[in-house]
């Protein structure tokens, strides 16, 4: 059973879902994955200070290029035209890398502490970065100074942008919602509906709300409008036996608007929030999944299997730690929404 094999970490099959493995894998854990919005190019940032790019072709992956930072890279994002990649991390700066044209990376942003999250806002032509220095900064890539610096109540842990909605999750469970049409003002600041540290966020494709995941194996579905508050709910996931794992990543399918969760238990699941069902539970991998993403049309789901530090430094053995990046082609049954089951919905 997948459960039992998952208990023997390290010895078990690292690829129980028979996903396509992207090679060569980074030498240390992967911190973020992002696909180009225009083509199947995958970028992975890693704790080994590298940012790598692969071209994903049917049945194969070609490493294309890579750049390096001086410290672990934590986040990455593509520009909307699919030509440029931004990456940032513990070196407290962001590099803009016009890789499709073969250009060299240049620094475009800086913070006072490691940069945890970033996103490209096409409609504003700005890059927004969130850092552990408790600020959100907006950057026009041609200027060295930020266009705007927004104070956050605490260190930025999670970010999701879908113009004009932006939600920032910080330490101490703050969730700050911005309307990017007036980014200087917080649209709303709430405390996370989950009782534990915020880990990841994802905005609904229709911008009516967002998903929030925490370290306590739980995802909250939250609507922005007060009139829709009754549709809010939370559900538990990524729990095995009496262990509760963190939900590390939330990603909406670009076409079907169902979503995937990936957790420290090494599993990823597909869910439909409208019918409140789990569409598919994938087999557990022996290592946690720290990050995942869909490609632009939802035909590829990329996920990394490597240690995410969820059990502290004690469980990390650099000599034997493995890192994998897998690509899963979701079947329609796994990501297509299903009608609500049961009469009148479950109550």
């Amino acid at each position: 059973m997948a459960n039992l094999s998952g208990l023997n970490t390290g010895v078990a099959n690292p690829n129980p879902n028979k996903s396509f493995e992207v090679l060569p894998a980074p030498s240390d854990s992967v911190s973020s994955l992002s696909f180009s919005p225009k083509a199947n190019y995958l970028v992975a940032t890693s704790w080994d200070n590298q940012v790598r790019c692969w071209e994903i072709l049917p049945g194969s992956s070609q490493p294309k290029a890579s750049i390096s930072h001086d410290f672990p890279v934590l986040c990455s994002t593509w520009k909307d035209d699919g030509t440029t990649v931004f990456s940032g991390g513990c070196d407290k700066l962001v590099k803009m890398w016009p890789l499709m044209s073969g250009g060299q990376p240049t620094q475009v942003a800086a913070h006072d502490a490691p940069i945890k999250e970033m996103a490209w806002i096409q409609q504003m032509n700005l890059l927004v970065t969130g850092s552990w220095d408790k600020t959100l900064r907006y950057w026009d890539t041609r200027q060295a100074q930020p266009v705007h610096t927004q104070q956050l109540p605490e260190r930025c842990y999670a970010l999701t942008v879908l113009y004009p909605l932006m939600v920032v999750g910080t330490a101490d469970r703050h969730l700050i919602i911005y309307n990017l049409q007036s980014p200087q003002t917080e649209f709303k600041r709430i405390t996370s509906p989950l009782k534990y540290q915020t880990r990841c966020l994802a905005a609904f494709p229709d911008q009516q709300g967002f998903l929030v995941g925490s370290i306590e194996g739980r995802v909250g579905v939250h609507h922005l409008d007060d009139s829709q508050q009754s549709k809010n709910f939370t559900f538990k996931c990524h729990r095995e036996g009496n262990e509760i794992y963190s939900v590390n990543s939330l990603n909406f399918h670009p076409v079907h608007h169902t979503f995937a969760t990936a957790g420290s238990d090494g599993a990823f699941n597909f869910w439909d929030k409208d019918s409140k069902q789990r569409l598919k539970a994938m087999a557990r991998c022996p290592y946690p999944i720290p990050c995942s993403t869909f490609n632009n049309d939802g035909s590829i789901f990329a996920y990394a299997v490597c240690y995410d530090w969820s059990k502290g430094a004690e469980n990390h053995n650099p000599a034997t730690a493995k890192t994998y990046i897998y690509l899963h082609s979701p079947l329609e049954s796994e990501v297509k929404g299903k009608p609500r089951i049961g009469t009148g919905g479950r109550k």
Partner: protein
Amino acid sequence: MGKKKKRPSKVWCYYCDREFDDEKILVQHQKAKHFKCHVCHKKLSTAGGMAIHVLQVHKETVTKVPNAKPDRESTDIEIFGMQGIPPEVLAAHYGEDEEASAKVAKVEVPPNIPVSGVVPGPLGVGFPPAPTYGAVPPVYNTALPMQPPSWPVPPRAQSWYPPQPPIPVPPAPRVLPPQPLFPIQNVTPLTSTAAPGLQSSFQVGPPGLPSSTPPSVSQPLFPITSTSNAPAQSSPFLASTLPATVASSSPTVYKGAADMNSISNTPATSGYPAQSNQGGAPYTNSHMYASGPNTGGPSIGPPPVISNKAPATQPATNEVYLVWDDEAMSMEERRMSLQKYQVHDETSQMNSIDAAIDRRISESRLAGRMAF
């Protein structure tokens, strides 16, 4: 739930006298409440270790264990879980505890006595003595509905009854299976309560209690009924929701460790004696080792073998715990503090991270290499 009796009473915390069903939860409680550095929130493994950490890292002296009762505040006594408790304190606690539990046990007895004379009537099905009590199976049926209001109590009641101990012998192999089988077994035992044989009773036992609650599941979770049609897919999901469901209806039973998790399931004593064996060894290991790991850097060679969270020694109890439980810091921050410093102590303060990075940058600049 489990047929074997737990320790003489549940485990309890020396510092604050709170009780827990499971030593692992007790250890986590101690780490979070008593062995936590008040400056950087680092959780140590003993009071002494915490005092040393605060002294060495923050240059402060700690004389009292935080959140401890007035006469239990000394940092000199080396307590880890249930180990290290002075015998007189131990005896005093159990002296009180036995009275309380005995009362509880007696409360459970009356409903069953008229029929079988043995309290664990509901769980007596399948016990070796069971066949001698022909009336037991019907008791089980009728007792089931009675259980939900008082289900947290029966496990305590069970633990006082001799028939229990013989049962625990086989559970060692049984420790693992019940977990994934939970949801599947739930459906059948309800209907076949008089199932003969030890095996089925085990599966009946543990889910016997939670199984009475599914009807009351009204949490806005993804539908359990639907998942019962696809047990393979949903079993892990179900296994985790059931204990949570059960616990949510009896939060008061699970005293303490509230800071750790809001979900707990007290009645599941399945695998308990086996767990105590398992729990003892790794705790000892991690104890001796633990004065290092929280404070140690990557110089620690064989960390994967011993885990502070002890998830590898998976006892089949339903007490749940967070794999990442540090609310004050994210995984990346913790990792970052380690990677960069290789220092003996991990701290999560950003200014420390910044300072160290700045130092590196200035060092490399001095060496003639530009960092950026």
